[in-house]
């Protein structure tokens, strides 16, 4: 019996084994290797010189890094709350079986399939002060064009709007999936219980999709903390570092300055940030759930 039992146990491992191997090879190993490299002065050509926490000490004192962290956090705060809210409102509006809703669902989802290159190209046409869409409109109204991408105060909001436009499709899909999980008869019960539209939304819909809400906020936060392509392609981090994000800085340090060790240390800091923020969100939501 024990032999058969042991054999059966091994069968189990055989099933999860291939996944574990790939997971270890492409996720766990690079993570550990990254931590290891971040403790060295290293470049892309194989130089490794142990400096302990030296790279982290440098990070603490690096004003460029500090600004990129602030930029990244501001961008995340400018993107995630409005993105979640707008996606939820659009999903509520599109959660019906009419032909128009089906067409609009496709329209909102379509921006998601565009690559970041195309998206930034489109928004450059809109934002650029010489003959951009907004500039033309302002000119027609007799106003001066606004240099969105070269004004240090406007460049972050401009990147945020671009990202909002690009990223709406996926959260809408998640919310629609969540909304369609809610059984229709509890809405009918609510109608018989004299619930107003607002009460129905607040007491029925919102609690029913709180898991989806958490998922959207967590995924978007993790994604926006890693924002890179839009900043790189729209502004290259400028003007004067006003739109340099953390990942953009990591890219510059590793492939511009060849300081692989320092770049990896910043990447580990970013990893820690994302981990903390995500776990915090999860804890905040599930803790309230247990109280209820």
């Amino acid at each position, binding site marked *: 019996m024990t032999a058969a039992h042991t054999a059966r146990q091994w069968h189990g491992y055989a099933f999860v084994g291939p996944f574990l191997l790939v997971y270890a090879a492409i996720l766990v190993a690079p993570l550990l290797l990254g931590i290891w490299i971040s403790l060295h002065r290293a470049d892309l050509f194989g130089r490794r010189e142990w400096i302990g926490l030296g790279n982290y000490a440098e990070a603490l004192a690096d004003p460029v890094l500090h600004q990129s962290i602030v930029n990244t956090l501001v961008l995340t705060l400018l993107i995630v709350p409005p993105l979640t809210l707008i996606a939820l409102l659009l999903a509520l509006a599109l959660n019906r079986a009419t032909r128009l809703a089906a067409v609009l669902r496709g329209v909102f989802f379509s921006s998601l399939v565009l690559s970041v290159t195309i998206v930034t190209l489109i928004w450059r046409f809109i934002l650029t002060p010489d003959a951009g869409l907004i500039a033309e409109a302002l000119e027609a109204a007799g106003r001066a064009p606004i240099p969105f991408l070269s004004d240090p105060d406007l460049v972050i909001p401009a990147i945020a709007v671009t990202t909002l436009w690009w990223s709406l499709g996926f959260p809408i899909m998640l919310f629609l999936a969540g909304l369609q999980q809610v*059984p229709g*008869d*509890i809405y*009918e*019960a*609510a*109608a*018989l*219980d*004299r*619930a*107003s539209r607002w*009460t129905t939304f607040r*007491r*029925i819909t919102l*609690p*029913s999709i*709180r898991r989806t809400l958490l998922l959207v906020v967590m995924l978007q936060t993790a994604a926006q903390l890693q924002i890179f392509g839009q900043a790189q392609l729209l502004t290259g981090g400028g003007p004067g570092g006003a739109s340099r994000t953390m990942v953009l800085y990591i890219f510059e340090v590793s492939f511009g300055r060849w300081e692989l060790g320092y770049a990896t240390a910043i990447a580990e800091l970013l990893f820690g940030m994302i981990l903390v923020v995500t776990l915090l969100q999860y804890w905040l939501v599930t803790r309230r759930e247990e109280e*209820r």
Partner: protein
Amino acid sequence: MSGLELVDVRKSYGSTPVLDGVSLSVGPREFIAFLGPSGSGKSTLLRLIAGLEVPDSGAISLDGRRIEHLPPGERGVAMVFQHYALYPHMTVRENLAFGLHNAGTARDEIAARIDQAAAVLEIDALLERKPGQLSGGQRQRVAIGRAIVKQPRLFLLDEPLSNLDAALRNRTRVELAQLRRRVEAGVIMVTHDQAEAMTLADRIVVINERRIQQVGAPLEVYARPANAFVAGFVGSPAIALLPATVTGSGVHAQVRLAGGAEVQTRVPCAVLPPEREVRLGLRPENVRVVAPGSGTCDAETILVERLGDRTLIYAQLAGGEELTAIDEGTSALRIGDRVGLAIDGGSAHIFGGDGTGYHAEHPA
């Protein structure tokens, strides 16, 4: 006029009609069962009364007030849904309080009504739990409780017993019967189970093919079915409907079955339509098993159902028609045996070509 009044209510989904001109009066404290097969329109009718659907035309009034254009919450009705439709993220207490709270009922009043309903339904211990932590039977009670606390003028129950196992179903049936004595309101229950309808309802509304087929007390619907559909749907095992020809010309109709056997009914010839080709309706209790050759006709046994106190014999006549007969509980008949059938024509029904039922003058 108090109670519920439906006048010529029509409803269709797109080009598919689901209800064709339904009219019905329900007394203020009456227990009514809508009985019909799936797709007959009975659930749609209930949803029209609840306000979850809007009729294309016709009038619905409750206690003299037109309600067909009022939103569901303002009609004075409460509904128990087939799948209960409890709010999964709220506790039982919050589920019960939700409707009262929305209606602006005072806090003490809400608490008092919940306590009272919880005591009656024996769910006091469950008030702080969520629906996911309850068994099917407990959820059913909570759903009923949510309707009771609203103190409606009319309860609407959509297949209330269909999700329960057999033992629980019988218990809940008894509880529903007790419930209606405690509440000052009418009850309308949708069901496709004729036993539920027969045991609970004051009157049964048989619905089929988008129309009301018959409205009547349970025994009346059983004894004097308005048409062949009602006769076939109410009663188990089902009534046998045998092709027959009207032969006699006396006061009461005499018919000849396809195999040649003559049956003398007590249906007055005067009420029958002029056509001669009819169907003879025979319930199992109208047919007794006797020795071959000594009854109205002979038949072959095709199925034997032993119920203990009696035995149901499913028999096939020479012409291929099937009917059900009753034999003693100790019957030794087996499949394939030849039997004689003594048909008691005195309680037989006759159904005309259009399905209309004609019944014995004095039901035996």
